[in-house]
């Protein structure tokens, strides 16, 4: 029986725009298993970043209008803001895309770390916090002397490692990493991903890795979820989803990504564009572009159900009953 750390049920996040409400996350159901690296992929506007923030109740300009966030037995939706502040950092850490906007430019790295520790664990002395920071930073491959530097004195790769250190400093159970390598050079990215895998083992971490880069997911994730127009379209073991993608969107996506290790001919081109979320199409949001579209796709939402155990897809090719089933796995 797989141990579920975080169970997300019927999550809906809306943004209020001048032109009307936009559902950035449209009734998403899935589980994050303890100890796994779950990759969340999708193109821009699919809702993956909003989902990542919603999991920490950090959606500022939008609102979670429905759903359950069962984190380690507790529904985060029932917690006060004060209680949430303890969860953020303490239980769930976050690594963002651009560390320069997450790190305080006028604060030394050491202070970032010690302040984080002493704020969440008031019993810890400055000295103990400093020692813990030093050990951590060394483990991440940064020389301890650099603790007294400012963010701008470090390279992009180092800043990202500092971000991980902040997430690890409080022994977070879950780390949500939103496009952590997008701003990094490819060699720095490769080293960062290696480090992430090592840390996952060593610190028993569970990681939700949000990215548009399918290669990154293939490299580190255990399972992968694919999002499109605010919905989760597919979820399964990474080997299964790549070898045998079930949803036509996933199929198109995988064929349109160049693979440097192969001698490829032409890349697949997907016609059309993601829908305008102000006026999403009726039924499945992918139906206008789907090469396998059927009549029912344009009329009703498919459920997000297993095609076989462990591999889910939101597609009428595999469903019998319309949506409203909340069986995420």
């Amino acid at each position, binding site marked *: 029986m797989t141990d579920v750390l975080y169970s997300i049920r019927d999550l809906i996040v809306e943004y209020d725009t001048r032109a009307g409400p936009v559902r950035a996350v449209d009734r998403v159901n899935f589980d994050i298993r303890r100890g796994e690296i779950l990759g969340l992929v999708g*193109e*821009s506007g699919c809702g993956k970043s909003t989902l990542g923030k919603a999991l920490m109740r950090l959606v500022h300009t939008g609102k979670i209008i429905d759903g359950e966030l069962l984190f380690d037995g507790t529904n985060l939706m029932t917690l006060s803001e004060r209680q949430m502040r303890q969860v953020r950092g303490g239980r769930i850490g976050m690594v963002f895309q651009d560390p320069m906007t997450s790190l305080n430019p006028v604060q030394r790295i050491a202070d970032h770390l010690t302040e984080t520790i002493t704020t969440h664990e008031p019993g810890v002395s400055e000295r103990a916090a400093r020692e813990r920071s030093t050990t951590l930073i060394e483990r991440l491959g940064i020389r301890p002397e650099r603790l007294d530097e400012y963010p701008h004195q470090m*390279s*992009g*790769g*180092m800043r990202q490692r500092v971000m991980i250190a902040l997430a690890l400093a409080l022994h977070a159970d879950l780390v949500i990493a939103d496009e952590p390598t997008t701003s990094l*050079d*490819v*060699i*720095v*990215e*490769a*080293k960062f*991903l*290696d480090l992430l895998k090592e840390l996952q083992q060593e610190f028993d971490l569970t990681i939700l890795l949000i990215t*548009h*880069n*399918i*290669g*990154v*997911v*293939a*490299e580190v*994730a255990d399972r992968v979820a694919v999002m499109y127009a605010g919905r989760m379209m597919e979820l399964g073991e*990474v*080997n299964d989803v*790549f070898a045998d993608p079930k949803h036509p969107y996933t199929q*198109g*996506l*995988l064929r*349109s*990504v*160049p*693979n*440097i*290790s192969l001698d*490829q001919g*032409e*890349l*697949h*081109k*997907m016609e059309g*564009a993601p829908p305008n979320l102000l006026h999403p199409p009726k039924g499945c949001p992918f139906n206008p572009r789907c090469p396998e579209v059927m009549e029912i796709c344009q009329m009703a939402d498919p459920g997000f159900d297993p095609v076989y155990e462990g591999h889910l897809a939101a597609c009428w090719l595999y469903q019998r009953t319309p949506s409203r089933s909340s069986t995420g796995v």
Partner: protein
Amino acid sequence: MTGPLVEVSSLKKWFPLQTGFMASLLHRGEIPSVRAVDDVSFAIRRGEVFGLAGESGSGKSTVGRLILGLLDPTAGTVTFDGQDLSTLQPEEMRRLRSRMQVVFQDPLASLNPRMTIGQAIGHPAEIHMPNLTPAQQRATIFEMLDAVGMSPPEQFYAKYPHQISGGQRQRIVIARALVTKPDLIVADEPVAMADVSVRALLLDLMMELKQEFNLTYVFITHDLATAKYVCDRIAVMYLGKIVEMGDLNDVFESPTHPYTRALLDAVPVPDPRHRRTEPMPRGEIPSAINPPSGCRFHPRCPIAQSGVCDVLDPRLEPLPVGSAEHLASCHLRTGDYLELDPERGLRPI
């Protein structure tokens, strides 16, 4: 017409950290500079897609700007169709500009938000083709819109950049670059900001246009998977120098310079069964202000030999076996110290 379209010879571009009289006084003439491009030479053949690949600080974008004459070299020359850019009068350079155009990474930054698409595409025509009547200009703009797949052209002519998608905006940028029927287009990360599913469309479009309009491309990118898809030849840059150059297939199938090997191996592959085999270089890319002595890559190189690599500058030379046009800049692989390569004989070059 024969001969290369562009020739770059011993090109250097150093950006001084401070300028002015006081600066040179303080530093006794030797002002510290960012050595963005440091002795680069290559030729671009007519009709080819020439790739310039590298990570941050490699100098690839600066080389692109030097080719376009947007920057003046600190040393060395850029020759376009036989003409040394530095010898041209401003008016001659201006006319030459209609023959070389550029596509940048971010279409939102490249397109004036207050100009309609028609106005944006028509702008270069106004500058370089002033004798066109309004009807002729409109026809040219329509031709360009059609060429980049924005049909029917009337539908897009009066729209503004914010009213179309990102992929469509980049098509407009490409259309605008084509209006003067240039010989050369320098594309600097042209698809980096486009969504994954749109990139293939844009790349195919660029290749179709190459055929249709007899174009030559300089394709600048850090994304080697994309480079593999479109380039004929490629030059890999590191810290201002070319470390490897040659036919695309040769470089990708037989990468020789340790940096090229690591770079290619680092690219994430969309296949979970794939495993990396090369060791990643130690440390990080050093500063271009004070680059390492000898071979720039030596502090990070897995096969660097003390006494050679940290002291002597390697030269870009052909491989001992294989195509004479496949060059690498490595003492132990193409230089004078082949016998010192610890992997010699253990793996194919």
